[in-house]
Every structure is written in structure tokens, then in C-alpha cells.
């Protein structure tokens, strides 16, 4: 059977979630692999959310926020960027392919970019294949 990845995406309410909505109102088509979780700001994305998504079987995790300088809450997206960089280093150490975690800035007007992003990320994760995290963790001690 063809591998159909599951991608959990954390979208900030003001830019990226609105951008994703715009892709919808514009009837753009993209791959059905993403599951969006809305947060008020990308600065709210706690690394715990990312790890939990991987742990529960997500093949990829996407974080989207407002473009630099455009954050509805002034600088939450920069806080997100800092955490993203350190998280990447951590998950790489844990043997998780860094490409499984992706950060992108999507503005409220970038419905097209959002649609393209989901397609390209889905393709990248397909190439990587299924994430082994859930299986490895659940077969502990064997």
C-alpha cells in the first residue's frame, strides 16, 4: 500500500491559519495529509507539542507563523524560530530526520504558498518514509 504520511501542523491564528483558510476560500487543492492545530501565536508552540505529535505517530510536524516583523504579538515568531533551531538539534540527536520538522512563515494572504507548502512537505516526508518513532518507543525493552 502506498505510504500516506500524517503531518501535524501548528498554525498561528492571525497569519498562517488565515492563510490556510484563504487557500480554502480560493478553492486551491493540496494534499490531504495535514492536520492543523490552531494556536494564537507560533510563540505558543511548546516543544512538548512537537514531541508528542511525533510520539503519537506523526510522520512530520510543521509550524507556521507570521513573517518576521509581522507577528500579531510583535515577536512571538522569533521566539518560535529560536526554539525551532534548538528543537531541530535535539531531534537530530534523537535519530529523527531533521526534515520531519519544518518551520515556514505564511501570511494571511499566502493561501497559494500554504497549499504549495503542504504539497512539497508531503512529498518530502513521503521520500523519507514512515516515521519509526511510535513503533520504536512502543516496543521498548525488546
Amino acid at each position, binding site marked *: 500500500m502506498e505510504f500516506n504520511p*500524517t503531518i*501535524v501542523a501548528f498554525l498561528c*491564528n492571525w497569519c498562517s*491559519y*488565515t492563510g*490556510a*483558510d484563504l*487557500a*480554502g*476560500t480560493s*478553492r*486551491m*487543492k*493540496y494534499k*490531504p495529509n495535514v*492536520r*492543523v*492545530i*490552531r*494556536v*494564537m*501565536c507560533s*510563540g*505558543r*508552540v*511548546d*516543544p*512538548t*507539542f512537537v514531541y*508528542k*505529535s511525533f510520539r*503519537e*505517530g*506523526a510522520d512530520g510536524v510543521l509550524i507556521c507563523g507570521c513573517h518576521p*516583523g509581522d507577528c*500579531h*504579538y*510583535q*515577536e*512571538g515568531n522569533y*521566539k518560535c524560530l529560536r*526554539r525551532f533551531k534548538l528543537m531541530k538539534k535535539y531531534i537530530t540527536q534523537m535519530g529523527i530526520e531533521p526534515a520531519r520538522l519544518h518551520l515556514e512563515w505564511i501570511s494571511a494572504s499566502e493561501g497559494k504558498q500554504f*497549499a504549495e507548502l503542504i504539497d512539497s512537505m508531503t512529498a518530502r516526508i513521503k521520500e523519507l518514509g514512515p516515521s519509526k518513532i511510535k513503533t520504536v518507543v512502543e516496543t521498548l525493552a525488546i
Partner: protein
Amino acid sequence: MRSMEEARIGVYVCWCGNNIAKMVDVELVTELIGKLPHVVVSKNYKYMCSDPGQELIAEDILEHNLNRVVVAACSPRIHELTFRKVLEKSGLNPYLFEMANIREQDSWVHDNREAATRKAVELVAGAISRVQYHEPLDKRSVGINPATLVIGGGVAGMSAALEVANAGREVYLLEKTEQLGGMVSHFDLTFPYLYDADKMLEVMIRRTINHPHIKVFYNTTISEVHGYIGNFETTIQSDSNQEQTLTFGNIIVATGLRPFDASRVGQYGYGRLPNVITSVEFEDLLRTGQVRTKEGNIPQNIAIIHCVGSRNTEFHEYCSRTCCQVALKFANQLRSLLPDSNIYDLYADMRAFGKGCEELYTATSKKEIIFMMFDQQHELPQIIKSVAPGDPPMLIFFREKISGLGLEIPADMIILMVGMEAHPDVKDIAHAVGISICSNAFFIEKHPKLDPVATTTSGVYIVGNCQGPKGIPDSVAQAKAAAARVLATINQGSVHVEVTTAEVNETLCCGCQTCIMVCPYTAIHYDREKKVSVVNEVLCKGCGTCGSTCPTGAIRSKHFTDQQILSQIDGLMKMALKIE
């Protein structure tokens, strides 16, 4: 973990006519979701947002004693409030609700019905899992000090001040110079109807300074404002060097813009060539009633150059929106004053938009004005002082864009239509009142279309040019809009403040203070006695950045708690695997 009543969830899947039902098998979603724990009822309906749809939820809440509701429909940005109200009317706290977006982010963006249905099931499962951990949140409000602070005594500032004061409310008007009037006090006539600017201004200034409810502070700037909507406070250093503390409930910022410094465009020779003057200086000249060169001669050849400092990435990328109309006004006034002169108008694009302005352009073009176009991006005109005896004093070389011809124009006087730019102290003002500036150094509105005079800081409004270049009518309209907003909050006596704020669990907070520096609204402070961080929930906007910064987990972002989001992940991922 908080003690929780047993969740009784009602789930409602919307068809949205065919919008959702065409691509998502709503019957199957309803059936699968109905089997999840805590789901008491699971239904679908053609239009959940319609009155009968809302009724359906309200009836079920009573009949099945529901304490949580999930609606799978359009984006929560569209109907979250609608459904929250249904809960409220039915006696449930509106926050015990969650929406799954199966239209904008599902049925409309996919063309595979099976995949879209499956995605819908997972999204709804996530919402169900999340809503179990929702907590009732109470609306909160703060009282409003009825006084208003207006910063800037130009047309925008005075308009706002008068509008508020005419409603019988106190206004403190801060002006950094020694007189009111702002940039308009330099103008001779206004466009497009060529009314006398002075007359308009004089009436406005007289009304302002004589108004019993307006107190004007001259030579006064703002340094720092403390507090939050309804309860601001600042200390000003007034004229007589005396300190005075003002308290007020709202702030209207009307600090305007200043003319672009034309000497930055080297090839125009401003500052070197005495008869190259700016549009602002030309207004002053017009006010004397006589247009003469620096040497006192009547100019025979007069050129007007547009877009000085504007629409050019080297200076300012934006358009200043008024210069083209002012240039047309100049051409008209010049033609009247000097009927025999040659008037050249060098424009980059003629942007005579707005009521009465295209008409002004048409009328002007019939007055023997020579309009020529140049390339603002690649080839700015070059002004040189001529040396040959008998030649006109200055020559303008440029390539005419439409014909492609290189032209040479004689000039006794050249008027540079300077654009507008931010004052050098704009950052200080932004910092003082807690608002942001964009890359062009204009203040940023809360929403560019739907909330253009408010800012992301409650109780702080931006009007006139400080929000972006504009003419007098737009500035006045914004000023009065802001005044209406301010008066509305004053009349209410109190305003609702953000409910989904951060909250510190004082039992867990260790006082490391890491959260304080990340708050963009200075809403968190350290309580030295208790040795914990404290959130001022009036200042907090609920971004949640502190919640994901707190190293102990002592800070909870209400309605976006770790537990709620982790449960959502859990719910949708478990369902994803089940379907596989």
C-alpha cells in the same frame, strides 16, 4: 490536573449545503465520531449556523444535559462566536466549545472524497479530545477613565479632540511645537477645490483652544505612558517646565509625518541651487501672494518634479498619496498668478485619485501645462546650473518615458514635490504608548481593513498621517472614527478585556523571571514579596509565548493549555491510526 466533571459532549457535523457534504461523507463522520467516549449525541445538519441548526444544539444541551459541544463546519474564524453564543444562551459557558474546520481546511481544498472524509473524522476526534479539557472562562471588564489623551495638534489631532470634547468629555491635547495646526499651517490652498487652508485651520484652532473640555499643552512631548485601557497615566513636562501627571482612559496618536529631506536626491541639487525649492517652501511662497525667484525676478520657466523621495527603493518605496494632487494645485495657481509663464510638470505616474481629483487633473491639463513622464525607477531627471551666457539659469535633462526622447527643459524655478516620511522620534512615541511601527516607520493598525484606527494595544488609536500618508479628508475621517470608538468605550463605562490570558500558578512559580522578558505587552511583573511572577490580565493579549517559555510549567495559557493541545494531538492521532 484539575478535577473535572464527566464530559457529556454533543457533536454536530455541518453539510454547509453542498460545500462540505459534497466532498466529506458527513453521515460516516457522524457515525464514527458517535462511537467515541464521552460523545452523547452526534448529529449532522444542512446548515449548522442557521437558526434551526443553532436550535438543534440548544435543544440537545437541555435534553441530553450536554456540558461540551463540538461543531465541525467552517473555519472558527467565521462562526466560533456564533456557536459560543448558542452555548451561552443555553446556560453553558461559551468556552466549553470547540470547532473543527472541515470546510476551508478540508472539503474545499481536497478532491478525494475518501481522504477528505478521513481527515474530517480525525480533525473532529481531535476537537472532541480537546474539548474535554476546556474550562469555563469568565468575561472580565475594566472601568474607563473618561478623559482622553490626544498626541499631536495637527488637523487630525484637533479633529479627534473636538469630536470627543463636543460629547462633553475631557481631552488633553499634547502639541510638541508652540502652535497648533501641524503641516497644514504651511499650506496655502487645499486640493481639489482650492479652498483657503488658513481659513479652515483658523476656525479649527480657535474652537480647540477655546473649548471648555480641551486642555492644550504646547511644547510638550510624551515620554512614557503607564497602565492599560481605561487607566493610563503619564507625567508631562509642560511649557513652564512644571511636571504634571495626567490620567486618562484612551489615547489617540496623531503625530503626523514630516516632509522628505530633498537634499538626499543628489541630482536635483536641492540646497546647492537656490531656485530649486520644495513643495512645502513653495506653499509658503504662495502664501505671500507673489511667486519670485530668490533673486526677486518673475520666473518664466517653472518646472514641477513629482515623486521626490517617493516610490523609489533608494528612498521610500511607498507613494505619499497627496503630492500629485498638490502638484496639480500648484500648476493651477501658477497659471493664475503667471499667465504667460511656461509650466512643466514632470511626473512618474499621475495618481490623481480621490473625489474631485481626476477632475482637477482634467481641468489642469487644459491650462497649457506641459505634462511629461519620466522613469522614476531607472532614470531620475538631472538638474544642472547652466553656464553659457544668455541661457536660462537651470536645465533639466531627462528621458521622456512615453516617446523615449532625451529632453532638455529650461527652468528659472523648480519645485520638488517631496513625499512624507516619519518623524525621527517615531520609535520613542511607539515605545511610550506601546504600539508598533512597520518597515516604513508608520504605526501599525490592528487590522489593515477591518480595524484601521485601532492598534493591537487596547485603548490606543492611530489617526492621520502617522498611520500612513493621506490627505485632509481621510485624516479627519480617521480622527472622527477614533473619537467614536473612544466615546463608545467611555459611554459603556467599562470594556471587556481578553479572557484567554495567561495565568501563573503561584504554587509552582519559582521566580526565575524568564517569562518577564518575553512578554510583548509588559503584562508580567515580578512580585518581590511573594517571589513569583504575576500576570496583569488586563494587559495580557493571550499570545501564549510566556506559557511555552516558562521552564516549570507554572504559566498556563488559558484556552490553549498544554493539556488541551496535547489532548487534541492525542485525539486526532489515535483516530488516524484507528482508521488505518
